[in-house]
């Protein structure tokens, strides 16, 4: 790491990189102890049924097996969920998806644990499974939750904009298309896991891979009937999460196990296959778009209908829907229309948070619709976008006035003058024999934070240690996105201390302070703003202390410099270590709070939609360009070049920024071309990495990332959220490139070689 103070805007190498390249970074999978207990889960194995009996008489006899736990062992509500608590820790009477947890086996060895799970027999009465979200809406559909107010609808709502549907008649051109996006699996390399111990004081300590330690704690306490102050969650390095660990995965199962392990530590580690069956996925969606414009390309009308398959439990499904509805018009001015959406229960695998969070789905809708419209009007697709691109002060589709930085025009203009765009005709003409080339673009907007009602806040804590160094207590989890590096940069730069001297305490409910989830592209924005305040307060406090010590009356004459405080007029210095030891430990700690500003606009009277996030207040923007080459023999798509111009505010750390853009784009590429998580009648058929294909190095093109660097005045040093936007660009950009090459707009994803081949052979017929 660095011996000098970091600078904002300059790359500081990740402090965690040293441990990670040596294999010394500890993840929660890396905890073992002689005599620890293995805990594993018996899963339902069928999508919808009444559970009549759990027969573990054979399982419990197996050598090494300590206990088998069922819902009878759950002392609290046995319910978990963020918005709606509709998911049991262990099934009581109703199985709602194949991955439902029915029993836990505790054992001395992993092998006997696995054998015992196989030996448990479930007696069930099968129920008709609801596996098609369209059929789930019908009046004769089986109900996934009998007591749900609105049959199989978790959340639904509609917003009318301007003249609503009446404006359709005023359009000169209209296109209609229905897009279907698929289920996507997070496929983080570190599967769900944890390590837990209940000590003899009744104190439960859990080490876990999660994005939400504080919220988890509340959920565990409520579901299992524990006292909150007796539950501690520690989050070490996390091996990827991308939304899949936003909420309860192993935590309640692990806590329950620890309560029955007689003080021994318990380890739970889901296999890849179990993770596939049990964990949440990106919501599959059906998007019906009717987009209309005037002859000159001015967008006039949008009617969009959204159906999302949320699986059997809430798992933030309503929040995903609300964000999708809000973003369904993309980064454009569209004065009239309707957005009508619903999030539907089924007995399919659970859908939940996944980087992009609903915006990924609708971005692919509006952006493909724009290209269809461009052809209908006879306008260049980039020109059509520029003409309608939102500017600060405009209202977006749902009526939110943009009061924060709005850089979509700059992003599009950057691509407009990029050689990949300006020389695209020449590039396309040079396709090889039996190859066809196309170039496509997509324009993306992505709102960060939680919306107007749920508070988006963070509490930063900085401590001056007895050694004269600074310790930052990280409130938000760093699951690879690098916010801990940004934290070091912020503190190092404000306090002028060598980056090496900044220690990090990773999230720990007993040491760090509640700061919300590592999600919604809000980590560095919200926690960073809190941290800036804390660092400034710390600096001021130390300067005042120094002024007192040196008997100077103006603390402004002082500044913190590497390892000292210096009196600027005289040059005298006091080492920080000395000052630290003259301070009480409570004086050496500074905490600061920040709550993100929210939208004042009331775009809907529907309280439910508002609660679920509508509208957001701060938006990041990006424009993407994909150059694809299609093989006319096999239909395979190769992305030859990919560039993105993004407005995520001022760039705090160029290397981190690029990592997010490149990484997010590769996940988006997987969604576009390779990944299809398939469940047939509720049963997962893509069971592992041999059938669920994420991009390898041979599939991932180099991504050119151009940052606009526009300063956002409310952001920490001018930055905005960057975590999710890059994932939204590739599917529409690639679909649009294929449309450019073949004249066919592919409406389903992933875009398979088969569908491309069909499009290509249809051209040769024409």
């Amino acid at each position, binding site marked *: 790491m660095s011996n000098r103070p970091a600078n904002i805007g300059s790359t500081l190498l990740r402090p965690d990189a040293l441990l990670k390249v040596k294999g010394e970074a500890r993840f929660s999978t890396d905890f073992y102890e002689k005599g620890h207990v293995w805990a594993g889960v018996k899963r339902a194995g069928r999508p919808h049924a009444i559970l009549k009996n759990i027969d573990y008489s054979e399982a419990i006899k197996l050598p090494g097996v300590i206990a088998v736990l069922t819902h009878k062992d759950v002392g609290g509500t046995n319910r978990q969920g963020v918005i709606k608590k509709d998911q049991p820790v262990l099934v009581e009477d109703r199985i709602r998806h194949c991955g439902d947890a029915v029993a836990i086996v505790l054992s001395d060895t992993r092998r006997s644990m696995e054998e015992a799970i196989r030996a448990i027999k479930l007696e069930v009465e099968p129920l008709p499974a609801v596996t098609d979200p369209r059929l789930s809406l019908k009046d004769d559909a089986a109900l996934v939750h009998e007591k749900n107010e609105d049959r199989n609808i978790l959340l639904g709502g509609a917003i009318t904009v301007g003249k609503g549907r009446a404006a359709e008649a005023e359009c000169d051109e209209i296109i209609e298309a229905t897009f279907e996006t698929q289920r996507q699996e997070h496929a983080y390399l570190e599967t769900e896991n944890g390590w837990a111990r209940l000590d003899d004081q009744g104190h439960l300590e859990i080490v876990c891979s999660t994005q939400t330690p504080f919220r988890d704690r509340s959920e565990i306490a409520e579901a299992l009937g524990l006292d909150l102050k007796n539950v501690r969650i520690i989050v070490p390095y996390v091996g990827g999460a991308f939304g899949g660990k936003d909420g309860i995965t192993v935590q309640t199962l692990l806590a329950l196990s620890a309560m029955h392990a007689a003080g021994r530590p318990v380890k739970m580690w889901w296999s890849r296959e179990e993770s596939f069956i049990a964990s949440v996925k990106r919501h599959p969606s059906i998007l019906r778009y009717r987009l209309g414009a005037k002859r000159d390309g001015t967008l006039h009308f949008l009617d969009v209908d959204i159906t999302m398959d949320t699986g059997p439990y809430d798992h933030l499904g309503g929040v995903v829907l609300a964000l999708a509805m809000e973003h369904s018009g993309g980064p454009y001015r569209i004065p009239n229309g309707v957005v009508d959406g619903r999030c539907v229960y089924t007995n399919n695998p659970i859908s939940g948070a996944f980087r992009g969070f609903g915006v990924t789905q609708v971005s692919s809708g509006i952006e493909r619709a724009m290209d269809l419209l461009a052809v209908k009007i006879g306008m260049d697709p980039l020109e059509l976008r520029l003409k309608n691109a939102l500017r600060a002060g405009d209202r977006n589709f749902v009526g939110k006035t943009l009061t924060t930085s709005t850089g979509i025009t700059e992003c599009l203009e950057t691509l407009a003058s990029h050689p990949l765009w300006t020389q695209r005709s020449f590039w396309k003409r040079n396709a090889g024999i*039996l190859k066809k080339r196309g170039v496509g673009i997509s324009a993306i907007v992505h709102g960060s934070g939680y919306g107007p009602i749920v508070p988006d806040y963070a509490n930063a804590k900085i401590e001056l240690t007895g050694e004269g160094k600074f310790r930052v207590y990280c409130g938000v989890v760093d699951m690879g996105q690098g916010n801990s590096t940004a934290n070091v940069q912020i503190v190092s730069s404000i306090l002028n201390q060598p980056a090496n001297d900044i220690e990090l305490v990773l999230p720990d409910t007993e040491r760090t302070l509640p700061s919300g989830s590592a999600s919604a592209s809000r980590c560095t924005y919200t926690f960073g703003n809190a941290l800036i305040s804390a660092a400034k307060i710390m600096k001021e406090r130390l300067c005042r202390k120094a002024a007192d010590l040196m008997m100077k009356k103006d603390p402004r004459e002082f500044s913190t410099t590497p390892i000292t405080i210096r009196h600027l007029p005289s040059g005298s210095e006091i080492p920080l270590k000395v000052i630290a030891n003259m301070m009480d430990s409570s004086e050496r700690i500074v905490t600061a709070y920040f709550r993100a500003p929210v939208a004042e606009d009331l775009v809907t009277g529907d309280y439910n939609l508002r609660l679920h996030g509508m509208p957001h207040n701060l938006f990041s923007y990006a424009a993407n360009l994909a150059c694809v080459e299609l093989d006319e*023999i096999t239909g395979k798509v190769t992305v030859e070049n990919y560039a993105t111009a993004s407005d995520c505010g001022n760039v705090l750390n160029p290397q981190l920024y690029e990592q997010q853009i490149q990484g997010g784009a590769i996940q988006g590429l997987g969604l576009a071309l390779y990944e299809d998580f*398939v469940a047939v009648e509720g049963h997962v058929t893509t069971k592992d990495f041999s059938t669920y*294909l994420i*991009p390898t190095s041979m*599939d991932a093109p180099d991504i050119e990332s151009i940052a606009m660097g526009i300063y956002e005045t409310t952001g920490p040093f001018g930055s905005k959220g960057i975590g999710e936007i890059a994932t939204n660009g590739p599917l529409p950009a690639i679909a649009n490139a294929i449309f450019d090459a073949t004249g066919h707009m592919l409406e389903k994803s992933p875009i398979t070689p*088969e569908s491309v*081949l069909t499009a290509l052979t249809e051209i040769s017929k024409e």
Partner: protein
Amino acid sequence: MSHALVPTKIEELWAYIAENPEAMLCAGGTDLLVKIRSRSVTPDCLICLERLDDLKGVRFEAGEIIIGALTTHRQMIDDPIIQKDLPLLASAVQNLGSPPIRNMGTLGGNIVTASPAGDTLAPLYILKARLKICSKESSRSVPIESFILGPGKVDLRTGEILSEVVINQDSRFTVNHYEKVGRRNALACSVVSMAALMNIAEDNTISEIRLAWGSVGPTIMRFGDVERLLEGRQLTVRGIEDAIRKVQQSVSPIADTRASADYRRDVAGRLLLRLLSYASSR
């Protein structure tokens, strides 16, 4: 599984097999250990063959190229004889699995696993490979197309191992072509593959051709009538289009999570178009 044995000499191997007749034999383990983990097979005993150095390596002998069954894919890629004399096999193996899998997996293992998608198989069929099967008492030689009986089924009896793959040294084909179509570019199970050995006459006609397809039937497929149809034909779209249709009518692919049967059928024929890239310049 309760134990694994690792013989270092062939005599030890026969002894272990005699003591554990139900044992499964493991070469690189990249297929078998996966099957054991998923419990699709549950052997009590595993005999690992990887220390039997006599069954490794590539050599010439009396006009034949002999490849030890336990030669890893990586060893084949690096081997000068394979590079020079069996470029078809080298290019097929280059596509197999991934680098660590190529370090571990063996030619013999790929053959005995007998997946219709096995990357070494289509090349071995058109190279007319013969397999040497050994037991304690005897050995026999079997053409590969007789050895592989169906998906995952081979003519290997208890007490036998595949010890060598024998290919006639024959460098008369100028075109050595292998194409694997997967859903992504690495770690991909083949969706359809085609191996071709071909000679082109000066007038751009196909003078000689051998073809084999993978992943479009229960085993590797060869069609004598397609090959005969192509011999003498111009290497142009017009010249081969009825052969394309004939291939599409002759294959019998299944549908699975990776691809539909129609796609496999369609592409199996279309892969012949790739041979046009070898046509002499017009």
